[in-house]
């Protein structure tokens, strides 16, 4: 059992090894012109962020002109204003609860459904289920948003719980697609050995399969996290109580009040972007490889 497990481990490992080997080649003969060009182009990413930071530190009468200059006098209280105006602690907590809830539930449930489907693909019912779920990839959200908003309101799910549920359910289509592809690459001998040892299907899934899904769990977790944290449309149409608003939604709701106070608005934008940006800075490699794995599968 353990040998087979390490086998799948090396499969993933081999793919990961490829990159460092190529990097070694960059050692001699670095193309400095290309490096410089790419650094200059990277400024297009940095400029809007730099702009947001300097604007968030200005007083309103320092605005005007192109606005790229550094603030003459730094006004930190813009952040305090934004904090109070958007009720940042509550809003950020809403976003966090929804994101964490969506990620955890998605990982626990979607992988299990994918497992049941992947191991029974030759049964007509499960094969049908697979195509039923995956076909939803072709149904864009704007098409169902009107009825869903109505439905969640009737079911009293026009709140954070409902939103988590919708992320979990709407993620199914894509997640089942990539989970089943991955599960198909796990040899069944493992499960048979566990079954002979008397393990139930549930125990086999949680003890044997779920740990082996770690790379795919990372991918699905990252994608779900980015989606739920940054999503605007679903909270906009589902949430009815202003107290459960998420970070992007609250920026939209407060636009009219921000209109006269740009520095506070920009402070608010920065605070909305900061949490995920900070996570990204520390988990960069992991996030990028996770996202890549999701798209290339």
């Amino acid at each position, binding site marked *: 059992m353990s040998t087979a497990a390490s086998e799948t481990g090396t499969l993933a490992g081999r793919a990961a090894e*490829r990159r460092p080997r*190529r990097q070694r080649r960059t050692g001699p003969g670095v*193309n400095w012109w*290309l*490096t410089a060009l*790419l*650094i200059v182009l*990277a400024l297009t*990413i940095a400029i*809007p*962020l730099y*702009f947001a930071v300097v604007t968030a530190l200005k007083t309103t009468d320092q605005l005007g002109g192109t606005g790229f200059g550094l603030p003459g006098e730094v006004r930190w209280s813009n952040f305090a204003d934004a904090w109070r105006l958007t009720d940042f602690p509550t809003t950020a907590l809403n976003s966090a609860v929804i994101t964490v809830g969506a990620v955890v539930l998605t990982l626990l*449930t979607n992988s299990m459904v994918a*497992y*049941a*489907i992947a191991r*029974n693909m030759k*049964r007509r019912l499960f094969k049908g*289920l697979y195509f039923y*779920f995956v076909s939803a990839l*072709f*149904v*864009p959200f*704007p*098409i*169902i*948003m*009107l*009825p869903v*908003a109505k*439905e969640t309101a009737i079911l009293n799910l026009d709140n954070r719980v409902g939103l988590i*549920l919708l992320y979990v*359910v*709407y993620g199914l289509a894509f997640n089942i697609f990539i989970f089943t592809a991955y599960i*198909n*690459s796990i*040899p*069944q*001998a493992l499960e*048979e050995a566990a079954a002979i040892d008397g393990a*139930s*299907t549930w125990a086999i899934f949680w003890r044997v399969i779920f740990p082996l899904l770690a790379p795919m769990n990372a991918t699905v977790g990252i994608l779900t996290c980015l989606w739920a944290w*940054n999503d*605007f*449309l679903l909270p*906009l149409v589902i949430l009815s109580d202003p107290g459960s608003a998420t*970070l*992007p939604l609250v*920026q939209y709701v407060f636009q009219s009040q921000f209109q006269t106070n*740009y520095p506070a608005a*920009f402070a608010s934008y920065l605070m909305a*972007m900061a949490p995920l940006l900070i996570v*990204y800075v520390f988990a*960069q*490699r992991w996030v*990028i490889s996770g*996202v*890549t794995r999701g*798209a*290339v599968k």
Partner: protein
Amino acid sequence: MTTQTERTESAAKGRAGHAEAPSKRGVRLAGAFYIMVLPAFLLFFIFHTIPVLQGVYYSFTDSPGYGPANFVGLRNYIALFTDPRVLHAYWFTFLIAAVATILVNIVSLAIAIGLNGRIKFKNGLRGIYFIPNVLAILVVGYIFNYLFSNSLPALGEKLGIDALSTSLLTKASTAWIAIVILAVWQSAAFNIIIYLAGLQTVPTEMYEAANLDGASAWRQFRSITFPMIAGFFTINMVLSLKGFLQIFDHIVALTGGGPGTDTESVALLIYKGGFQGGEYGYQSANSVIFFIVIVGFSIVQLRVLRRREVEV
């Protein structure tokens, strides 16, 4: 490739072995599997399938979104095709989607090739280029909104460029450019990473051989790089187009659909008309048409790109 086939083969063997197992165990296993999928099936049916069916049902009514509704047959669908606001939204969405899809793929492929070259700070640069993907489009959009409506005109005035001295966002004829810029800025991040993953699958030996034959850089790109990453090109083209056809956040942040209804996308029109304009039934019909359009586009695009993949 070979590992893949080996894997499926071994999986198939495993499955065959399973079928020979005593039937009693087979039944017990299946029982647990049914319980695993049942809740997901029910929830999916309630929150996805029912809304789809409901949407189709409402598309044949004059429902304003509340209260009683009358069955009006195909009247909504007929009206859609003569409604200038709807036709404009489709035209505007297609324009943005087409331009943004092409631009984003050119830009990302170019940057990915650069990042794959012999450069310094490879990982750092890759990390920076990916940043837009972790930011909310709406929030970034508000920053761009300020840049387009205040900073850029000020800059234009300073440099004496008349075309830039008024905000791009005040006219539909220029606002689409701003929307495309935001769209490209935001989604290039994702596309670059995918192209980079693709470029890393191209064996360097091929370039070495091409260099020996004296092939130019462009020639190498056309004859080696592009054919080798054709599959990644297909993924990116299909995903970008599908995403941009549903464009919503970008427009809310930049123009809100204005001036008037000049920059409304189809998704924004469905939202506005359905939730605020009392056109629930009518916009449901619009959704059904939109669904057909998107599926149609995806299928055609996949067919064309797949055929190209085979040819090259």
